[in-house]
């Protein structure tokens, strides 16, 4: 499930709305396992980079308090149909994922 990411784009004029949904547990490290009483180790996305045609437009740093299966909505000016939107993330365990979508 961790490999899943959904990207949706909507273009009106040259204004591009980007919506991203990433599958990730986003464990804060402060939650206890109800059965063992032990803390569940922190596991969260630390960095997200959103690019338009290979150029980073939004670079985000996150803590563990972004909700599970994170959602991210952004707006970019100066886009056109056929542009490529890329999303890359890396979490605190060094796991990475990326996905790409073409502006329709």
């Amino acid at each position, binding site marked *: 499930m961790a490999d899943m990411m959904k990207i949706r784009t909507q273009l009106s004029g040259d204004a591009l709305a980007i919506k991203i949904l990433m599958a990730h547990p986003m464990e804060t490290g402060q939650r206890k396992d109800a059965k063992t009483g032990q803390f569940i180790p922190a596991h969260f996305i630390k960095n*997200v980079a959103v690019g*338009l045609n290979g150029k980073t437009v939004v670079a985000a740093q996150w803590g563990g308090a972004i909700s599970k299966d994170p959602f991210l909505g952004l707006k*970019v000016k100066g886009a056109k149909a056929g542009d490529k939107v890329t999303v890359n993330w890396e979490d605190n365990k060094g796991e990475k994922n990326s996905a790409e979508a073409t502006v329709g």
Partner: protein
Amino acid sequence: MNELNQQRRTLLKGGCAAGIVTLAAASGLLVPGRVLAAEWSKSAFEAKSVADALKGLGAADVATSSDILIKAPDIAENGSMVPVEVTSQIAGTQSISILSEKNPLPLLAAFEFTDGAQGYVSTRIKMGQTSNVRVVVKAGGKYYSAAKEIKVTIGGCGG
């Protein structure tokens, strides 16, 4: 019969696990990692108070601004997923940071904008309790801030 069955099931399970990995690889999403632009500000994200988090972000002389719009519910039914939408109408917005003041680690996220990205971000956050959600915007090297209180009720039967 039971044992045989069990054996076949174990075999099938093994087969399934391998199959899923292949599926993931074939889905094309496992592109080799690329270098991410931003560093992760440990001092800001591991700060236990709003003041320390702001210090970690390098934010000083923060001025209150009415040009930062925070769209979020007044009451959140469940603190584990609170939708928050931030629009900065301040010209030249370079970054938006979101903090939940009473969270054990107040800083939730920091977004940097370049090359046409608008001072806008929509996401969903975890809130431990009723608190101010504070947004800090950096524009033209200066820092601005706005806050909105979100009441968090304890999740129960609702729905």
